[in-house]
């Protein structure tokens, strides 16, 4: 759709521009002395407005040969040919208009007087059409850039939504239903424990949503979330699940939210849950000079049937680290000595830049 014809207001404003242009044309004709001022205005303003409508076609001409695709020569040739043709059409319109004007008794000599001004009219029309085309090209370029900007924003929003969806999907339905089952059991066995469990679960869910919406969070917040998750699972697994976390000196490091949670969830559901006697989920975070090293490890059943499901959570973490830090971060997972160990390293600002920590620590 033509951007000017699309809205009546725009069309009115556009036509209003052509009235002073008509005045300009009248001035040219008047200065040449071919017509009297009054006659010049009566002849030129309607002609100018008609040319305004004719020039609307420039939008389609420029649209047919976009600068970025057809090359400057063809654009130039197109512009000259189109301007020539439209100006020629304008001359025909002018001739028709003269016929009408000449029919009025007192103005019978106007057409004859006007005839020598035809080259002026042609040149004027030619230049105006070139101008209209230039404006069209500008308007198109402007629309394209605004479109690109809007698309960019849309993409950002989409990426964000996808991430949130992924985060929500990471909360395993098993975890929720099993937790509810535990609460259901506790309501008769140990009502205060049932209430504690409800609160733990609520805190965990609330924090997952709150943290997931942020760009970066301190490791300490992530660990708080992880501790809550493990506390809920400990109600379910009882003595089978032992937790051992040490992040001394690394708590202030900023990390993408919910980076550890899926790994810890894997450690429980694909590790400890498969051990008849359970085991320990061990989390270590250590700050190096310019990096943070985090390991999550858990016992695993050496002769479990193939096709465990740890892949998805790990892939997710890997993808998120890559999008956040590129090649500066990495994750690796390996099974050694009956334990499954996930180790990741990500860049953090050197300690002296942030708070002047003494570098490195023993544990």
């Amino acid at each position, binding site marked *: 759709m033509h951007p000017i014809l699309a809205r009546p207001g725009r069309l009115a404003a556009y036509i209003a521009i052509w009235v002073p242009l008509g005045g300009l044309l009248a001035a040219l004709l008047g200065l040449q002395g071919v017509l009297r001022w009054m006659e010049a205005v009566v002849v030129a303003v309607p002609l100018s407005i008609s040319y305004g409508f004719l020039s609307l076609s420039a939008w389609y001409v420029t649209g047919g040969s976009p600068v970025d695709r057809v090359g400057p020569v063809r654009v130039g040739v197109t512009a000259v040919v189109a301007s020539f043709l439209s100006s020629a059409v304008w001359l025909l319109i002018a001739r028709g208009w003269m016929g009408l004007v000449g029919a009025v008794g007192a103005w019978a000599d106007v057409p004859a007087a006007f005839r020598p001004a035809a080259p002026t009219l042609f040149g004027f029309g030619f230049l105006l059409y070139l101008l209209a085309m230039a404006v069209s090209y500008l308007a198109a370029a402007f629309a394209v850039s605004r479109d690109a900007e809007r698309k960019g924003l849309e993409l950002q929003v989409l990426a964000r939504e996808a991430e949130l969806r992924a985060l929500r999907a990471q909360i395993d*339905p098993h975890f929720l*239903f*099993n937790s509810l089952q535990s609460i259901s*059991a506790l309501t008769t066995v140990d009502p205060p424990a049932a209430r504690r469990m409800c609160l733990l679960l609520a805190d965990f869910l609330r924090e997952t949503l709150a943290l997931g919406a942020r760009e970066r969070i301190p490791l300490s917040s992530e660990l708080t979330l992880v501790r809550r998750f493990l506390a809920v699972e400990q109600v379910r697994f009882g003595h089978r699940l032992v937790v051992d976390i040490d992040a001394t000196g690394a708590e202030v490091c900023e990390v993408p939210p919910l980076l550890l949670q899926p790994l810890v969830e894997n450690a429980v559901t694909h590790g400890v849950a*498969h051990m*008849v006697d359970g085991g320990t989920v061990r989390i270590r975070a250590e700050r190096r000079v310019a990096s943070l090293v985090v390991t999550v490890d858990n016992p695993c059943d050496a*002769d479990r049937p193939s096709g465990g499901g740890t892949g998805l959570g790990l892939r997710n973490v890997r993808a998120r680290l890559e999008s956040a830090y590129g090649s500066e971060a990495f994750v690796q997972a390996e099974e050694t000595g009956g334990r499954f160990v996930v180790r990741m390293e990500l860049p953090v600002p050197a300690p002296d830049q942030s708070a002047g920590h003494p570098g490195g620590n023993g544990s």
Partner: protein
Amino acid sequence: MDTPLRIVIVDDEALARAVVREYAEADTSVEIVADCANGFEAVKAVSELKPDLVLLDVQMPKLDGFEVLELLGRDQHVIFITAYDQYALKAFEVHAVDYLLKPFSADRFQEAIARARERLRAKTLVPVDEVIRAAKPRTGPAGRVLIRDGANVHVLPVDKIDYVEAQDDYVAFKSEGKQYLKDQTLSAVEEALDPARFVRIHRSFILNVDRISKVELYAKDSRMAILRDGTRLPVSRAGYARLSQLL
């Protein structure tokens, strides 16, 4: 409601067992005969106590609910209990297997027990193989074979299998000089094992190709596979074709 329904509860989570226990104890027509924290205990308890019904959690360490069912066989009535498992639920629906979704109410529990009682009376059997096939989408060839020997469960890693022999209604897994019988068809075994390592060399034999020492022509169209330990197994013509394709 003459004799009480004797049930065994199997779940690795103590709290989950507590719920079932609570509901069952409130029902005088049900008697809990055992309460097991894993699949091995379950197989043992069921073998020794012969309950009418087993309430069986699907997700458990070492042996999951389906593996326990496979070991117990088609004569055992079960109600599966699961939190969330799309494949399992679909399989239960399709094959009309009773199940409970965690968390469940006392009413829902009663309903499941009543339905199980119906089935016990009607002697409706569970199509074990079909349920398991539908519930556990195969991710690859089996890495181990589970064999029930009375109250015990043997977990046999597939690379320890020398060969498998069909024996009447059973199949015999031969491993390190021992033999383990399982109530299964040789075709089902063939389907489960890795076709790159196990070949059906004969109507009655599946052979681990790593164990072959040589193949000798024995009579017209008839060959013998000689294993490293000296065992001689017949190889049919089709079996020989399959074997030479692999080697």
